[in-house]
């Protein structure tokens, strides 16, 4: 019998993927009949590194967990740390933190809109949306000093204050984005080809979403009203009424497909604009750091014994940091990170089964995956299936580095 199925490897390096992960698909013509998702290509041992450093260093390490949510992980970290330490950030700092987090949500969602357009071959829209995204990045650069990796948060407050000029620029930006989002809605939601490519693709029912435990916009597109900002409000979110954006509120029914998730993300940009406007209107005066001296802060951490969980609604879903201070060192004794993509990637395999090859990029992109947030453990086996332990791998790595250095003549 002739071979009727092809084996298509998508990843770890593939144009549809921006980060390494592997989707192995058996296809029959265009239909996918068997699928397997393999993760673990981006493990960096970042939690282990964090447990060797002091809390301030770990905070900035956590900013490097994800390339795009560079404020989501620190946010969860500072909330957890503040709970464990029993301190509270000054009100002004809380509002500034919320503003920065919402600015990040705007830029992340616009980034996603560009990526999904690129995945279905609509590169001109990618260029257009990212052109519009420059504005929020400029604002972030002006406020924090960098386009990404803002280095803005500190346990017990923020490091930089909002100036009058920043507030004026923020108000300009809000006007600009109301118009731009309106335009984006028209272009994305009315485009016939966009609709043809996303309607019914990656369709996740409410039951399925609950079973797979998806979070963030993926769950909201399926009609589940969940949002950390609404369920366990923190910082300035507690002062306002944040409601989860679900498609049934917008068009009446939730189908949970890639078209619905586009809608949810577009409306969340507007929600973020509202939140920023609220924060600017009600921005309290006062200091911005609970403990301005970092050495005093580290000393306090060293004397603290306690554990806490910090949760934040990142653009992709809830991010959770578990922290434990044991009172002997000035950093976390245990640090555990749960990123939203970890839950959301679970939805790939059931969604891809029975779909077409052409749907792979859409399914892969619709949750806005972040592979480098995911990998927490790496297990290495040799060819016979024996587990290799840490010391052996380290020895091998050192040997390889020395060999390469010798070959290349690297100066040490």
């Amino acid at each position: 019998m002739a071979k009727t199925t092809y084996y298509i490897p998508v990843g770890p390096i593939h144009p549809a993927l921006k980060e390494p992960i592997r989707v192995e698909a058996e296809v029959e013509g265009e239909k996918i009949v068997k699928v397997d998702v393999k993760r673990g290509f981006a493990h960096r041992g970042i939690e282990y590194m964090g447990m060797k450093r002091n809390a301030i260093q770990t905070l900035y390490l956590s900013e490097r967990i994800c390339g795009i949510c560079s404020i989501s992980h620190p946010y969860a970290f500072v909330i957890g740390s503040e709970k464990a330490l029993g301190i509270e950030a000054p009100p002004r700092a809380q509002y500034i933190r919320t503003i920065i987090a919402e600015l990040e949500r705007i830029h992340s969602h616009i980034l996603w809109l560009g990526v999904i357009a690129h995945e279905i071959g609509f590169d001109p829209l990618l260029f257009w949306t990212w052109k519009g995204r420059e504005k929020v990045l400029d604002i972030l650069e002006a406020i924090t000093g960098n386009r990404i990796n803002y280095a803005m948060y500190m346990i017990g407050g923020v490091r930089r204050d909002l100036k009058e000029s920043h507030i004026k620029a923020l108000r300009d930006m809000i006007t600009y984005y109301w118009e731009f989002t309106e335009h984006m809605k028209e272009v994305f939601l009315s485009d016939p080809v966009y609709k043809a490519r996303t309607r019914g693709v990656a369709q996740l029912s409410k039951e399925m979403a609950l079973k797979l435990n998806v979070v963030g916009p993926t769950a909201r597109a399926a009609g589940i009203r969940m949002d950390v900002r609404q369920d366990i409000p923190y910082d300035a979110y507690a002062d306002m009424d944040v409601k989860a954006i679900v498609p049934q509120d917008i068009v009446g029914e939730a189908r949970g497909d890639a078209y619905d998730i586009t809608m949810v993300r577009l409306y969340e940009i507007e929600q973020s604009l509202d939140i920023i406007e609220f924060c600017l209107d009600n921005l309290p005066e006062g200091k911005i750091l609970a403990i301005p001296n970092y050495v005093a802060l580290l000393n306090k951490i060293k004397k603290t014994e306690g554990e806490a969980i910090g949760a934040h609604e990142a653009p992709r879903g809830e991010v959770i940091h578990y922290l434990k201070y044991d009172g002997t060192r000035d950093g976390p004794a245990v640090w555990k990170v749960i990123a939203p993509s970890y839950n959301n990637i679970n939805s790939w395999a059931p969604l891809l089964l029975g779909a077409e090859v052409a749907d792979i990029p859409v399914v892969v992109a619709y949750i806005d995956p972040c592979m480098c947030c995911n990998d927490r453990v790496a297990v290495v086996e040799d060819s016979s299936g024996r587990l290799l332990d840490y010391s052996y791998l380290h020895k091998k790595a050192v040997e390889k580095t020395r060999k390469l250095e010798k070959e290349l003549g690297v100066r040490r």
Partner: protein
Amino acid sequence: MTPETIFYAIGMPIIGVLLGLVYKGIDRRVSARMTSRIGPPIRQPFWDVGKLLLKETVVPENAVRWIFNAMPILAFASSMTLLLYIPFGILRAPLEGYGDLVVILYLLTLQALAMAIGGFASGSPFSSVGAQREMVLMMSYEMPFAIVITGFALIYKSFSLSTIASTPVWSIVGPLGGLGVLLLLIAFLWVTPAELAKLPFDIAEAETEIAEGMLAEYSGRNLALFYLSDAVRGFAMIALEVVLFFPFTLSYLFGLNLSGAALYIAEGLWFLFKVLVLYILAVTLVRTSFARFRIEQASRIFWVYVNIIALLGVILIWAEVM
């Protein structure tokens, strides 16, 4: 062999490749400007071809070597032959009298077929899926294309392109036939991006889905030949469209009384200008403002909607001619 034949045999491919690459450069530049970018210089396609020719040609281990290497040459040869059948403005086609519209249809098909066979022969799953898609797509868009050509044969009672080029189609049809020709034009505009493997119908080469599909394994000289045949095919296809639907010459429009070399130069430039405008409208603008369809959606579009449009056009023409 007369000196004229030798001139055509050597001159036409050079001119064709040159024009094809220049149009490709303009296309990339305009597309970049539409997306708020600066874009590459117009000579960029020439640099690309030059670079590809310098690079090593890699043949995959489990490819069928001779088919894999022969298909780019076949595609290039057929695109070169295609050029010899297309009348440039008032210049007559070099191979006039040796073939007609049906030959053009087959030569265009041959290139797509060569790419598909090359894809199958390269032994990579991405190429195989791409080649399958190309076959399905080809079966879909050839039908409306053939209907359009039949419509023209009905009007002129001939398949010869020179006959068609000599008299503008709009001047010999009545109002009913005119409407039919308009419908044919719409069908033809749909076929164009599919025939040239451009968005929204570049399904066989979908970058984010199957990593350039049929061309995934091609490199070096082989890829350069495919690149060149693609450039020439783009120019030839649009030139064909101009000959069929917009054959108005300068002297016909403005009643100019030129003769000799001046006439040929003016008409040649006018023809190239018409091709440029149509290229930007039918290829650049379309490929910039659409996303890629799925293969079964593209199939449905051609088999149902475009076919209906084309058939309606032919029926209208038939009603008038009979």
